[in-house]
């Protein structure tokens, strides 16, 4: 929450990426969220990921719903088209946008109210259709913009700032995403940039439905003792199963690991995901095992983070539909209109 406008000058020594852009080229308007909000850290991670991957900002469409999380697309990738839609409907708007132009990168930003309550249905259906997107839920377990009501991801037994204990069961969006067939599922923590940035990069490179649940403490309404989404609680209960490095394109892998410690996944675009195991038993290529592991750890009160599942050969909705390579929004009369002769034939068949 700063009122100082960011200076437009770029220091000549600012590092540049492969496109010649600096990090500043991936920034946008100054955040109006509360000082210290976890969501701002996620915006920073998105900026970092896009910068490091040398994505052209204007080739990203950032689409959100309603809520604190959904306000954040204003605060990153200022050259991108943004779409702040209505509450809970980001997934359908993103699906439609994706159908219209398969060549852009689709970044969906949502929150736990937006995706686990009002938009639970759309969250589910966009994932099961395999829409090619990166779907980030900035999950703080609370309705921030309306001042502190529980959301559907709040754990049973957790306490609100006003002292009310939540008696409803929590929705685990990661468990849902795994069941629904998302082909990239991760969970991270807004306070762990080292973990989050590579996960976002890998998700952006993924072809198919990539879902990231980012625990993002609400410092205004959900950062008190008794909350299970506070900074202290998440730090104390974070169980990272792996550490991710992502190699874009055909770069040589330079990180050396002991044999057996590392799993490599090559995604469709050629990006190589190098997963260093932190938990020996965890296998990010086994959907069923991942679901079991998550449930077991959740029962022990642990928040499992890392790249939880990935299918490097995943398909997306366009491949299911066998749509043409040219984006649909670039087709014109010659490709779309069958013309008067065809219509005459149709007429003749109706007599």
């Amino acid at each position, binding site marked *: 929450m700063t009122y100082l406008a960011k200076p437009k000058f770029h220091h000549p020594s600012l590092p540049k990426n492969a496109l010649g852009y600096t990090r500043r080229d991936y920034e946008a308007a100054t955040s109006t969220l509360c000082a210290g909000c976890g969501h701002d850290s996620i915006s920073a991670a998105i900026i970092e990921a896009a910068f490091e991957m040398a994505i052209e900002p204007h080739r990203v469409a950032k689409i959100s719903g309603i809520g604190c999380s959904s306000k954040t697309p*204003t605060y990153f990738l200022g050259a991108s088209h943004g779409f702040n839609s209505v509450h809970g409907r980001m997934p359908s708007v993103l699906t439609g946008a994706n159908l219209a132009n398969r060549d852009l990168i689709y970044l969906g930003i949502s929150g736990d109210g937006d995706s686990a309550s009002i938009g639970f249905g759309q969250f589910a259906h966009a994932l099961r259709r395999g829409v090619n997107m990166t779907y980030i839920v900035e999950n703080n377990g609370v309705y921030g913009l309306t001042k502190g009501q529980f959301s559907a991801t709040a754990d049973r037994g957790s306490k609100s700032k006003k002292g009310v204990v939540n008696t409803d069961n929590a929705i685990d969006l990661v468990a849902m995403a795994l069941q629904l067939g998302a082909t990239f599922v991760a969970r991270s923590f807004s306070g762990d940039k080292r973990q989050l940035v590579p996960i976002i990069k890998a998700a952006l490179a993924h072809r198919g439905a990539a879902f990231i649940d980012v625990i993002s403490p609400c410092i205004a309404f959900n950062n008190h003792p008794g909350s299970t989404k506070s900074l202290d609680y998440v730090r104390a209960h974070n169980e990272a199963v792996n550490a991710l490095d992502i190699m874009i394109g055909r770069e040589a892998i330079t990180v050396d690991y002991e044999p057996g410690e590392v799993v490599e996944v090559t995604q469709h675009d050629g990006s190589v995901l190098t997963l260093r195991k932190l938990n020996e038993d965890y296998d990010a290529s086994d959907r069923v095992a991942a679901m079991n592991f998550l449930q077991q750890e959740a029962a022990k009160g642990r928040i499992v983070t890392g790249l939880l599942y990935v299918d490097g050969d995943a398909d997306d909705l366009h491949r299911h*539909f*066998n749509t043409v390579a040219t984006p649909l929004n670039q087709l014109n009369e010659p490709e779309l209109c069958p013309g008067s002769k065809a219509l005459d034939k149709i007429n003749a068949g109706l007599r």
Partner: protein
Amino acid sequence: MPLTAVNDFVIRFANVNGSGSASANEMFARAIMRMGIPMSPRNVFPSNIQGLPTWYEVRVTEAGHLGARGGTDIMVAMNPQTYNADVAAVEPDGYLIYDSTRAMPPGKPRTDIHLIGIPLTAICNKEYSDPRQRQLFKNIICIGALAALLDMDITELEKLVGEQYRTKEKLIQPNIHALHLGHAYAKANFKCPIGLRLQRSDKVGDRILIEGNAAAALGAVYGGATVCAWYPITPSSSVAENFTKFCGKHRHDPATGEARYAIVQAEDEIASIGMVVGAAWNGARAFTATSGPGISLMQELFGFAYFAEIPSVIIDVQRAGPSTGMPTRTQQCDLINCAYASHGDTKHILLLPEDAAEAFEFTAGAFDYADRLQTPVFVLLDLDIGMNHRLCRPLQWDDARRYDRGKVMTAADLEAGKDFGRYTDVDGDAIPFRTYPGTHPTKGGYFTRGTSHDARARYSEEGVDYVEGMQRLLRKHDTAKGILPRPLRRDADKPTRFGVIYYGSTAPAMHEAAEILTARGHTLDLMRVRAFPFHQDVASFVSDHDFVFVVEQNRDAQLRSLIVNELDIDPVRLVPILHYDGTSITARFISGAISDRLDALKVTPLRKAMS
């Protein structure tokens, strides 16, 4: 005296749904069309798949009156469940055709109608052993008998059988055989033809027979729609299904076989309109098809698309509401809900086609209007147009026609230094420029939002910015009035104080009613409204008359309300004529209702009374 008429009667088939009667009945109707005789078929069916009563009505009309007439001259009563009611519905001196194999349910016998008993079940049982064959061929045998009774050219039926089973050749002969079984029985046992009969004519011309939903789907194909998102709902599902069928035929890359379209059966109507809005924002032509309950569900995103100015096309095939209402009955009851859809001050574009031909034209046009005006456009069909085959003029397309993609700023425009403000009225027509996402690396990006914004799409809660935007949206609707299909006016031969306004599926019944009224000495000028917001001609039409009847198919006189509200007209001068029981409106109803009102309004001028 039995009813006698040539090419002018109503025949109604009472069936059980799921019994295979539909295709036989349709063949009967088509054979009449092939004889050059105009006819108008209608399905009356329940919200059910198997076992409940359905009716199929064919109005045979040399005069070309395609609206429902009301009444039944020949009842083909094949459903014991509704037999008594069906018998009661026959016009005096009309005909009842029934299966005489077994005694029909007991009921009050009618002595004022003519009974024609054909032992259909007995003929079938003698000829066929397979129970399914017995059921299916019974329908065909019945059509064969009707051909004899009505003097229908049986070769037309034979040809239709051949066309229908082109790909299943071994079914052709058995069906033709069944036709002749019925035909021969009727010839041998009754005096053929009966008083009501057919005679070859040339009144069909080059007209085609098509359902409005199929025509609208073709309109979407021709209009360049590439994204369709929908959720199944009667009576609109066949729009999306036909779009799927036509795209399968006409929209695949011939070299690669790849699809030049994407169709999503969404999880609900909210997701459907969300996808449409997302796709349209991203520069594709996108539409959804739905009915009243779907319109209710989509409200929030209609408001978004209106305020954020995103082109989107919604085909609403209206059915009787409120709530689930009568899902398989027709009404024009969504006008207000569409015209002012969503919270806050909104106004939307409505198109009101009268038949399948206009459903095609208006749907194709809707994509141009939506792109040009950057706003939702509603194509309002109803079940009567959408789900019935209707004769209409052939569909036409001008190959020189180009899609109007509206004001879209390109990378070249931006590179050339054109100033881009997403909501800036640069041309004075209240329509701003937009950019498609991904157009230019540094220019033309903007943020689309449902919150208040200024002329450059920046978030703003300043009253001045908000009011300026809302006023521009109003002015944009003024621009729309000059672009949308104009109302069609048809004045009587002599001057009159009375006018009639009507729209949509009321048109054929209204035209017939006008003839009836003229014959009774009532003179009326007609205006068919085809779009909302209203063109200035609507206001002129009202001001040209002392009283204007507004004929529509809903309880609350919705078009009349819109006229009163939008054109500031004294409601007293607009006399509602309302038909809303779910059946198709008829000329009998309209002419009767208008006659009654005219008699009541007929005040003799004072001077004349004094003299």
